[in-house]
C-alpha cells in the first residue's frame, strides 16, 4: 500500500503540486459559484419580499403586531361562552362529515381514475402502447389545474353544494395519484404479467392478478397521503361556496364579533380532524410501506455495528 501510493505520482505525468493547485482551483471555483448562487438567492428573497410588501393592502411593518389580535379576540370570546362550545361543535358536526365525505369520495374516485391512467401510461403494461403519451399529457394537465378553478366553474354550472368540490378534487387527485402510481408501476416485476399472458389472460386479468397485488400497499399508502391533503382542499373549497365546514366558517366569520364562538368551534373541529387523520394515516402508511423494511434495516445496522 505504502509503495503504491509512493510510486503513483512518479508514474503519472502530473506532480503533487499540480494536483493540489488544480484541486484548490476547483474548490475555489465551486465556492465562488456557491457564493454567487447564495447572493442571488438572498437578493431574490429580499426583492421579492419588498415587492410583495409594496403590493399588499397592509404592510408587514404595520401588520405583524396585529397578527395575534384576531385569534385573541376569537379565543377570548370563545372562552367567555365556553359553555356553548359543545353545542356548536355538535351543530357543525354534520358540516364536518360533509367535508370528510367530499375528501373521501374524491380520493376514492381520483384513485380509481389515477390507477387506470397510470396503468395505461406505463410501458410494459399499457393497453394501447401507442397512446401512452396521450394519457401522460392527460395526467399532467389534470394535475396542473388547481382544484379551485374547476370548482368555481362547476359551481356556476351545477349550483353550489358538495358535488362540484368532489369532482374538482377528484380530477386533481386522479392526475396527482396517477403520476405517483406510475412511478410505483415502473418498479413492478413484469414476470407475473408475462406468465399470465402466456396462459392467455386478458389485459384486465393481467392487471388485476399480476400488477395490483404487487403495487397495492404502495397505492393505498399514497392514497392515504392524498386523503390528508384532500381534507384541507375540501375545507378550502367550502370557503368559496362548495358546502361543508369551510362554508360554515365563512358564514361564521362574516357575522363578525358576537359570533366568534362559532368560528372558534369550527377552528377546533377542523384542527382536531386534521391532526387525528394525519396521525392515523401516518401510522397506517408506516405499517403499509416502511414497517417491515425499516425494522430489518435497523436490525441489520445494529448487527453490523455490534
Amino acid at each position, binding site marked *: 500500500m505504502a509503495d503504491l501510493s509512493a510510486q503513483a505520482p512518479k508514474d503519472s505525468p502530473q506532480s503533487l503540486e499540480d494536483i493540489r493547485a488544480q484541486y484548490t482551483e476547483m474548490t475555489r471555483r465551486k465556492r465562488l459559484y456557491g457564493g454567487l448562487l447564495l447572493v442571488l438567492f438572498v437578493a431574490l428573497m429580499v426583492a421579492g419580499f419588498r415587492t410583495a410588501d409594496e403590493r399588499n393592502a397592509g404592510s408587514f411593518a404595520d401588520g405583524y403586531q396585529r397578527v395575534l389580535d384576531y385569534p385573541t379576540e376569537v379565543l377570548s370570546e370563545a372562552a367567555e361562552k365556553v359553555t356553548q362550545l359543545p353545542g356548536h361543535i355538535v351543530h357543525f358536526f354534520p358540516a364536518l362529515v360533509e367535508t370528510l365525505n367530499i375528501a373521501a369520495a374524491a380520493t376514492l374516485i381520483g384513485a380509481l381514475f389515477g390507477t387506470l391512467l397510470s396503468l395505461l401510461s406505463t410501458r410494459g403494461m399499457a393497453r394501447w402502447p401507442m397512446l401512452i403519451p396521450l394519457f401522460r399529457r392527460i395526467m399532467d394537465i389534470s394535475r396542473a389545474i388547481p382544484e379551485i378553478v374547476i370548482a368555481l366553474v362547476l359551481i356556476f354550472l*351545477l349550483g353550489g353544494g358538495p358535488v362540484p368540490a*368532489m369532482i374538482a378534487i377528484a380530477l386533481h387527485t386522479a392526475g396527482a395519484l396517477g403520476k405517483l402510481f406510475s412511478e410505483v408501476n415502473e418498479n413492478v416485476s413484469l414476470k407475473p404479467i408475462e406468465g399470465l399472458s402466456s396462459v392467455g389472460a386478458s389485459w384486465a386479468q393481467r392487471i388485476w392478478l399480476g400488477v395490483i397485488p404487487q403495487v397495492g400497499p404502495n397505492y393505498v399508502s399514497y392514497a392515504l397521503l392524498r386523503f390528508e391533503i384532500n381534507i384541507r382542499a375540501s375545507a378550502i373549497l367550502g370557503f368559496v361556496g362548495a358546502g361543508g365546514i369551510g362554508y360554515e366558517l365563512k358564514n361564521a366569520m362574516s357575522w363578525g364579533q358576537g359570533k366568534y364562538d362559532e368560528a372558534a368551534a369550527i377552528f377546533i373541529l377542523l384542527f382536531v380532524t386534521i391532526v387525528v387523520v394525519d396521525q392515523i394515516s401516518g401510522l397506517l402508511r408506516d405499517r403499509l410501506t416502511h414497517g417491515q423494511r425499516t425494522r430489518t434495516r435497523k436490525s441489520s445496522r445494529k448487527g453490523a455495528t455490534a
Partner: protein
Amino acid sequence: MTVMDLNSAPLKGQMDKLFLKKRLLSLAVPAVILAYLAYVCVTFDVAGLWQRASLDNARTLVSDSYSYKTHVTRDNRSGEVSYAIEGERKGTYPEGMSPEWVTPGDTTVINLPDGHVVRFGPESVEYDIPGYGLVTATPSRGRGVVTELPAGDVPDWINVSKNRLAITTDAGRLTVTRNRAEVFRYFMGWELFFFTLDSPYHGMGPLTLAQHAIAGEAGAIWNDFWTNKMWQHRDVAWALGETILMAFLGTFGAGLVALPLAFLGTRNFMPVRVVRFAARRLFDFVRGVDSLIWTVVLARAFGPGPLTGALAILITDTGTFGKIFSEALENVDEKQIEGITSTGAKPVQRYRFGVIPQITPVLLSQLLYFLESNTRSATIIGAITGGGIGLLLTQAIITQKDWEEVAYYIVLIILMVMIMDWFSGWLRRRLIKGDAGGH
C-alpha cells in the same frame, strides 16, 4: 425427502382456506367501495343534480369562451346607433367608426350571415329572414312594440309580446323594446385580444405590424398591447408574477425558518427531551392549523395581497418542512460527522461539512417539489385573500359573462403550473447530480 413424508391434506386445507380468504377479500373491497360511493351519491343528492344544473349556463360558458358578440344598439328616442364589442364601454367603436358589415345612414343596414338582414329604419325595424319572411316591428311611446309577422304560426324562436320582440336565429339575435333596438352578431375568437379599437394598430396583420415595428413604432405597439383595456395584459402579467412570488417567498422562507427548528426536533442533535417534544408538537400544530385558517387570520392583520398569501404558505409549510427535515436529520450518517470531528473540526465546521452536505439533496428536492405544488396553493389562497391570478379568476367568474377571460386565465394558470413543474424539475436535476430518482 421430508416433503414426501408430509401429509399433504392439512397443507391443502390451509391453502384452500387462504385462497378463500383472498377471494372473499378481493370481492369485499370493491363491494365496500361501491357501498360507500352509493352512500355518497345519496347524501350529496346526485340524482337531484340534473334539476339544479343549468344547461343555459353551460351553453353560455362554452360559446362565450371561444366566441364574442358585437352589439349594434339604437336608442329609439334619439335615433343614435352605437356599436360595442360584448356591449362593453371599453369595446365601443369610436364616433364615426362602424363594423364593415353595417351600413350607417338614415336606414342602418346590418348584414348578418346566411343572407339575414336587419334594417333600423327611421320608424320601424325590419328583419329579413331567408326562408321565413320579413318581420317588421314599430316601437312607439303609446302602443308599445307593434309587430307584423308573416302569416302562419309563430315559431318558437320568435318571442312576441306587447312591449317586446325577441328573435334568436343561428345568424344572430334581435331584440326590440320601446326604448331601443339591439342586434347581436356572433364571431369566433377573442376580439381585441391584441389591440383595442382606439389603438391605431387594431385590425393590422402580423406582417403590417412588423413593418410598423421596424419603422420605429415598436415601443408604441408594445405600449398599446401592454395597456390593452379589455384584456389588461399588464395586470394579468403582474397577477401571475404575484402568484409565483407568493409561492417562491412562502416555500423558501419556510425552508429558512424550518431548518434551524428542525434540529430541535431530532433525537441525535437535541438531547433535551422537553425541547424535542415541544418542537415536534409545534410542527404538528402549525401543520394542523390548516392554510385556510392561517390565511383567514393573516388577512385580518395584513389585508389582501401577495404578502398575506406568502406568509400563509410560509407558516403552513414551516410545519411540514420541520417534520421532513428532522426526519432527514435523524437519518444522517454519524460516520461522516465522526470523521470530520477526528480532524479537529469545531462544532460549526462539523455541521457545515458533516451534516449539511448529507441533507442538502433531501432539502433541495423537497423545497423544489413544494415550489411547484405551492404555485397551485398560491392560486387558491389568492382567490381567498385577494391576490394574484386567483383573484382575477374569481372576479371574472363572479361577473358570469366574461367567460372568454375565464378560459384565458385557466389556460394561463395551467401553463404557469406546468412551467413551474418543469422548472423545478430541471433545477432539481441540475443541483442534485446523480439523483436519478428525483425525490
